[in-house]
């Protein structure tokens, strides 16, 4: 077989343009396949990374999924708030180590505004139990002196170009655009950016954080989602009011020991004063991911189809070229190549093209990840990691090479048949 190699190489070089195109087609499909696989994996990871270290998320009784979506991803609406008394009772429970009350509902240029306490910066963990880190500035104090201080998520700051000390005004509700009808601003009470968080790859990046008291303050002169006509409290006077929140959207709870989680969940479910619900974020997250698994599988199916099409292309190109190679194969046969040599010649070529295509595709993906990664992250919030191929990806690559080599057996078999049928004198 080894004596065929130089001939195979020269023959391939002779057809380098057609083979080159096939190679590019395979490389691109491999890039697509691996890229989608990587995006899928990263999406799943960043999804699971959204919250960690929080044992329970407590909110008004609704569906666990809805509560999680709202409290962790800031998507959708809270069906109901929970009273401040309940939040205090949770915090006072002996099994509870810490609580982070959160209050949602306002927005800033489409980014959700989260009212919370300084405990958020201390206890909130994401990813692999990583704490939040400030890239610039400091967290808000929760004191009355720094009432209108805001801490921005990394993406908010990057997208809107905010620096420390900038003044921002919040919008009431979750309007995506400022020009929508019914848009109402808390324009009379601007906030000052005091801190910008480091990037986390979680919903925190897209969130504007303010104190609970500030949340209360900007709604002092509001009733039912609109400013009270003819009644406005200027910011310098809000401090005279009681700014203790009356209700919050949800409470993130950290326990002293994880063992207590089921007891605590029962305690919340049986809470007398109001109807509450406690969900374990890990469980709800995986349920939620199951829901998205259909889309995930659709992505995989698409990339598999793309790959299939490019293999069909490979087979078609090689088969089409076989007619014009018939003479070449007959000559090789007349000088001693056996039919199985010719079969090997074609299978070898197909296998080599597939292998090279697979390697080229992997390289292309790595290069484009390096080149486009920052842009993708900034523009679409898609985090692509630049890493060695995972076991899963290697397995996919293995399949690609196996299927490609197998696909090239078909032209090889045809060449074998032709060389037997043609004998020494092909009809060309």
């Amino acid at each position: 077989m080894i004596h065929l190699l130089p001939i195979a190489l020269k023959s391939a070089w002779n057809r380098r343009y057609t083979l080159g195109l096939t190679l590019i087609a395979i490389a691109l499909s491999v890039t697509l396949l691996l890229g989608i696989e990587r995006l899928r994996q990263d999406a799943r990871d960043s999804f699971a990374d959204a919250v960690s270290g929080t044992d329970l998320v407590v909110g008004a009784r609704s569906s666990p999924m809805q509560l999680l979506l709202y409290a962790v991803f800031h998507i959708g609406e809270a069906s109901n708030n929970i009273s401040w008394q309940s939040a205090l009772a949770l915090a006072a429970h002996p099994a509870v180590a810490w609580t982070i009350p959160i209050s949602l509902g306002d927005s800033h240029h489409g980014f959700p505004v989260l009212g919370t306490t300084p405990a958020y910066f201390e206890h909130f963990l994401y990813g692999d139990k990583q704490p939040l880190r400030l890239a610039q500035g400091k967290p808000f104090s929760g004191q009355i002196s720094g009432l209108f201080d805001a801490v921005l998520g990394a993406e908010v700051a990057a997208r809107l170009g905010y620096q420390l000390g900038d003044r921002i005004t919040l919008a009431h509700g979750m309007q995506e655009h400022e020009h929508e009808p019914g848009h109402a601003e808390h324009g009379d009470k601007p906030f000052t950016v005091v801190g910008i968080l480091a990037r986390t790859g979680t919903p925190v990046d897209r969130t504007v954080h303010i104190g609970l008291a500030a949340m209360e303050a900007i709604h002092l002169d509001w009733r039912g989602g609109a400013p009270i006509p003819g009644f406005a409290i200027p910011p310098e006077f809000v401090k005279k009011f009681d700014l203790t929140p009356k209700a919050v959207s949800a409470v993130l709870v950290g326990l002293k020991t994880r063992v207590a989680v089921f007891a605590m969940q029962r305690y919340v479910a049986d809470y007398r004063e109001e109807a509450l619900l406690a969900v374990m974020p890990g469980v709800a997250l995986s349920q939620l991911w199951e829901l998205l698994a259909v889309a995930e599988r659709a992505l995989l199916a698409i990339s598999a189809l793309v790959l299939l099409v490019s293999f069909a292309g490979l087979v078609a190109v090689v088969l089409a070229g076989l007619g014009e190679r018939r003479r070449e194969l007959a000559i090789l046969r007349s000088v001693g190549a056996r039919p199985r040599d010719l079969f090997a010649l074609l299978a070898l070529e197909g296998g080599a093209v597939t292998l090279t295509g697979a390697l080229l595709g992997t390289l292309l993906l790595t290069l484009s990840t390096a080149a486009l990664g920052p842009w993708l992250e900034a523009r679409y919030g898609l985090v692509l990691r630049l890493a060695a191929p995972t076991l899963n990806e290697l397995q996919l690559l293995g399949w690609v090479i196996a299927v490609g080599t197998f696909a090239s057996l078909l032209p090889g078999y045809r060449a074998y048949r032709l060389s037997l049928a043609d004998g020494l004198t092909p009809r060309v």
Partner: protein
Amino acid sequence: MPQPLLDLQDVVFRWPGQAAACLDIANFQVAADEHVFIHGESGSGKSTLLNLIAGVLPPRQGRLVALGQALPALSAAARDRFRVDHIGLIFQQFNLIPYLSVLDNVLLPCRFSRRRRERAGDMKQAAATLLNHLGLGEDLWQRRATQLSVGQQQRVAAARALIGQPEIVIADEPTSALDAARQEAFLGLLRQECAAARAALLFVSHDQRLAEGFSRRVDMAEINRAATGGEEGSALDAALPHPRPLSRGERGGKT
């Protein structure tokens, strides 16, 4: 009489699925060093005969011994090996692989046959000698085969057929693409080199004028009993140069 190089007795061949034989040879021998001119019109069965001798097709019946080896007894792979070890082939045209250089084309049999490699000694030297003898200067050796004229290409094919000193050289209408003057020159060179290599030459042509200078002349019409039967259909079928001539559908509905 010493054992002939080639010995065919009562050799019959017919294509699978066909009733009539297209080749039926009672007796045909070739001695070593002999230069045989085989004359035959299209459809006389000469291509089939060459395919049989080259071991590409197995005969249906009969005795076919080449170099003391009964070819029908060999497997297809062994016949392939036999061919590359002992037989050099020259075709009417398209002998050369277009993307290989002249020298690489000549060396092809040595790539596939250890025997040819060993008999050639220094392969490059052997190729150089042959090419020089055939009037192909060193400036041509690294050119791609397609850059040569048809006459030059046929001489390259002759060099390839002769490298490693095979016992038999088979030439199937090698001169029909050449003009008359070049035919003469090519034939002269070919016979001269075969004599130098002590190879038997089987030269097939429809052009009787070329027979001069051969040690023997054989007419296909005389040795092939199937062709002399004169049945139009079988003669035509036999004329098709490849074993699977047409699919059934193409053959005008004949079953």
